[in-house]
């Protein structure tokens, strides 16, 4: 079995009200230490109010080959964007 500490991905909530954002990774022997390491490594400049860590091997990711089928179909659904609809100025803000 590898003697290298597992790799963890670190997500930090920058300010109250915003989502956690991926900020980087680090190594740690377990989840508790991963959170502490994340605190010491990634919040040295007061960057965070909340930390998530997840072992990198547990992240499922979409595959780049499927980029076309996954994301392009939404290109044509222009009606999902508010700017698609022309509303006369007299109607006011909407």
């Amino acid at each position: 079995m590898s003697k290298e500490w597992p790799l963890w991905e670190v997500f930090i909530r920058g300010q109250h009200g915003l989502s956690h954002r991926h900020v980087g990774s680090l190594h740690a022997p377990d989840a508790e230490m991963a959170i502490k390491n994340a605190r010491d490594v990634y919040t040295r400049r007061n960057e965070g109010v909340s930390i998530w860590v997840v072992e990198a091997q547990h992240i499922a990711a979409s595959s780049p080959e499927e980029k076309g089928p996954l994301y392009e179909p939404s290109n044509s659904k222009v009606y999902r964007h508010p700017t698609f609809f022309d509303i006369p100025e007299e109607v006011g803000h909407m």
Partner: protein
Amino acid sequence: MYAQMITAEASDEDPKLLEEFQARIDRDEKIEPKDWMPMAYRKTLIRQIGQHAHSEVVGQLPEGNWITRAPTLERKAILLAKVQDEAGHGLYLYSAAETLGVSRDELVELLHEGKMKYSSIFNYPTLNWADIGAVGWLVDGAAIVNQVALQRTSYGPYSRAMIRICKEESFHARQGYHAIMQMAFGTPAQKAMAQDAVNRLWFPAIMMFGPSDSESVHSEQSMQWKIKVRSNDDLRQQFVDQTVPQIEYLGLDLPDPGIKWNEERGHYDYSDPDWSEFFNVIKGKGPCNVDRLNDRTNAWEDGAWVRDGLLAHGRKKAAARTAAE
């Protein structure tokens, strides 16, 4: 895994994929970890990012050399925070390299076995307190010139690491200049230390950009792939141009009699460093090569029981948790 990559040759790569790959780079698209990439691109990146990471970590040593001797509590805190940042930057860069399929431990072992390099500058000693100012100002100053350019590099994780690092490094050069300013404007002894530091570190600093473009082995392909984005000479000139007036402001003598403003070029001329010295340092014959590598190797080996102990405990905890479920 990395060892296998080094031996694998990329000769039989699909030309159509190569062409599409180059087109993406030409469109300034970022390449991400799971995207297809030529083996040589991957190998070059691992080498470059790995060396960059090693440089940050070995780079802790010359400055760390003065943490216990810093002259005031504030200077001690600033220096410690700065050297700590270098460890952080090493960590970000190892993480970027790890997305390419090599582990941090593998890279560290390659460093310790002498199979990977780090920046030649860190094989020079820090001999007086002004060196700490000079390292922050000249060495980090030179590194920043290079790193700002690298924010636009084509590999996503590397580019993002560079952006974070540049943001954090912005205080490094300033604190160095501030420290050396105190000395240049201080007592005669302090001024002499400042001059000594600039004299010793000037040429090693301008060597950091690597040999002249005409002699650099990796440049052309790396430029085409936007792993490198500006040439060695170009970056070096920028550094000289920005630094000469800063030396003059301190009232110190220029460390190179060849430095002169060239009206026609709109740049400072400067003397070529002694490249034979550079290549000697690269080959392990710098003033501190052996000590630096011993320091790192000892730290790694002395720490093995700690890494193993904490990992064993982590596994025990995980097992207990599973058993309880």
